[in-house]
């Protein structure tokens, strides 16, 4: 079988921290400060710690030495946590940005779909947008013309094809946009999480179309998704990315199993040693019950506390501790910070402990991860931000359910709402 995509030592670095300040006047100011031997007034302290383990240098390797091959006609799924490098990889492969080192070789025309409806203009009609979007995605006018009827047919908006798309419902808009993309005529197709759009019925149609593309038409597909079932049904092979490297690559079933089990490793305690900058450091973190005892998992029907300690090394820092909660699919659930700290207390150096109460019946069952951070103002300086510091599973004692339903409840959170029902 011939190789369609071959990546060799592909790496991509992003520079963070000291960087251009963005304006000439500030660059001159910085240059003047440095020339007089003073500190750089615009150095953003702590930014280097946004991604763990990389402190000490202001280069973050979003992708590091990736080697892989994709055969012609093969569909490769790509999975990984947030920040694992999936989107960077897709950006490099779609030529939106260039790699820092290494290379990728490809055979055949490449089309990439990082978003549906890129370049759609609200004032233009559906017909005009089909041509425009097709051209943006790399089709010529005659190619779009050839497929025009198919596209319109697939989208199901033929009645409104000469109406400006600003009058479309969001569902129609997405259907039209996907229809154009689905009819791209390229040997290699790079697809980001775009299938999670539209209503359930249309989603099914999209997945079916993707299936045709990979199995029937013999085209090569790279497919990123958080929806593991979709990866499973579309791709034979899957690659797990982790911290910018390939963790493993192999048959999709096995990879998904491996990925899920790696995520299930919940750590209720964080004790890596201190991370942070010269102003503040994170020391430890744990999940506890009401009595301050460490818990193994979160019981849906009990209050749980997150406790973390940190040292503030300078006086008069206006700091705000904050935490960032994600669900198992990497979705941001919420951010919360302690904003009521005031007066002398917060301004003195020393070691602090922040305790956050997660009330019972708040999280739904499932796995959640928490990032711990400390930010100070003015300037929104991040002193530490430890991603994935705590991972926990929320479990439920089914015996406590008061209704007859015993299956899993959908949703990310499961708050106990005040219901009142009366016969009237």
């Amino acid at each position: 079988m011939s190789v369609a995509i071959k990546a060799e030592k592909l790496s991509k670095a992003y520079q963070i921290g000291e960087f251009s300040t963005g304006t000439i006047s500030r660059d001159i100011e910085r240059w003047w400060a440095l020339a007089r031997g003073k500190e750089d007034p615009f150095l953003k302290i702590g930014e280097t710690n946004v991604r763990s383990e990389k402190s000490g240098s202001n280069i973050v390797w979003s992708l590091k030495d990736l080697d892989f091959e994709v055969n012609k006609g093969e569909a490769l799924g790509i999975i990984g946590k947030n920040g694992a490098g999936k989107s960077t990889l897709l950006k490099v492969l779609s030529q939106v940005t260039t790699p820092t080192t290494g290379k990728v070789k490809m055979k055949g025309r490449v089309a990439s779909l990082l978003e549906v409806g890129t370049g759609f203009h609200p004032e233009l009609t559906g017909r005009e947008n089909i041509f425009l979007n097709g051209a943006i995605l790399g089709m010529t006018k005659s190619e779009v013309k050839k497929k025009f009827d198919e596209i319109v047919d697939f989208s199901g908006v033929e009645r409104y094809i000469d109406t400006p798309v600003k009058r479309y419902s969001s569902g129609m808009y997405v259907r039209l946009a996907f229809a154009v993309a689905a009819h791209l005529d390229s040997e290699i197709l790079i697809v980001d999480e775009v299938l999670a759009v539209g209503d359930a019925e249309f989603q099914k149609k999209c997945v079916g179309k993707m299936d045709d593309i990979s199995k029937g038409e013999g085209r090569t597909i790279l497919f990123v998704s958080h929806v593991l079932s979709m990866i499973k049904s579309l791709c034979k092979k899957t690659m797990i990315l982790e911290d910018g490297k390939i963790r493993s690559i192999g048959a999709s079933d096995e990879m998904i199993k491996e990925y899920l089990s790696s995520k299930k490793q919940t750590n209720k305690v964080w004790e890596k040693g201190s991370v942070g900058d010269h102003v503040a450091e994170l020391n430890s973190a744990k999940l506890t019950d009401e009595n301050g005892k460490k818990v193994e998992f979160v019981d849906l029907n009990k209050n749980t506390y997150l406790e973390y300690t940190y040292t503030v090394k300078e006086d008069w820092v206006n700091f705000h501790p904050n935490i960032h909660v994600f669900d198992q699919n990497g979705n941001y659930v919420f951010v919360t910070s302690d904003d009521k700290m005031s007066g002398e207390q917060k301004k003195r150096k020393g070691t602090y402990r922040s305790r956050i109460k997660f009330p019972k019946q708040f999280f739904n069952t499932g796995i959640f991860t928490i990032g711990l951070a400390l930010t100070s103002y003015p300037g929104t300086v991040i002193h530490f931000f430890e991603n994935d510091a705590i991972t926990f599973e929320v479990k439920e004692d089914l015996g406590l359910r008061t209704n007859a339903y015993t299956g899993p409840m959908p949703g990310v959170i499961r708050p106990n709402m005040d219901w009142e029902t009366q016969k009237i």
Partner: protein
Amino acid sequence: MDTKTQNAGGEDWDLVITSKKSWFDLQLNQIWRYRDLLILFVRRDVVAFYKQTILGPLWYFIQPIATTIVFTFVFGNLAGLSTDGLPQPLFYLAGITAWNYFADCLSKTSTVFRDNQQIFGKVYFPRVISPLSIVLSNLLRFGIQMMLFIGLIIYFLTQGVSFPVGWELLLFPVFVIFMAAQGLGLGMTITAMTTKYRDLSYLVQFGVQLMMYATTVIYPLSSLEGKMYWVVALNPMTFVIEGIKKSTLGVGVLSLETFIYSAFMSLFILAMGFLIFNRVEKNFVDTI
């Protein structure tokens, strides 16, 4: 990047993505491949403009007419500046129409990266298509404004004013290309630099206005002497505007030397714009 590359194994690759950035790899073949997109972008800009405004193309007339009236009053009547013996409204309208085209090309292309951030971050196509489409869609606007200008010429012809226009009229399209080249080249340079320095875009707004006064829009080059003459003459747009006046109204400075100077400067500015733009386009997504 899209060239057939023969590697050691003797395999054919259609596309090789590397970090290599050559200063002179301008990918002109890529522009040709995406020519349909160029046309569609122009169409989009024009159609969207018509649909979003009540007055539609009337807007194209209002601005030059209003400016001409103000200039005629302020510079013609109050300041009494020379207009090379031409009727004042005609002299100003010629300068304004030409200058507007240059200024629009420059200011719109100078924000290309910022305006297209979203789309550039999601899909690849030769980035240079965007500034090119701006220059072309502005050409349409320029054409419409030229009709106003021609209308005014006809009016003055019926009033008995004669214009000594000769073979120079043939050079008119060439001067339009020079204006487009300079606007495009400068705009691309600025947009490439604004990915790093945002404050440059503020400079553009009043920079273009100031530059107009250093170009022969509101006064003829023939009215200047000595040092001032040379300062204004070295401005690459000056001989282009003079050339446009000479070719359409028969009055203005045009010689073989000034033509060669305009051609050289236009080419130089355009090449500089292309090179700098090309340098930045591949990674600007990471910095903006």
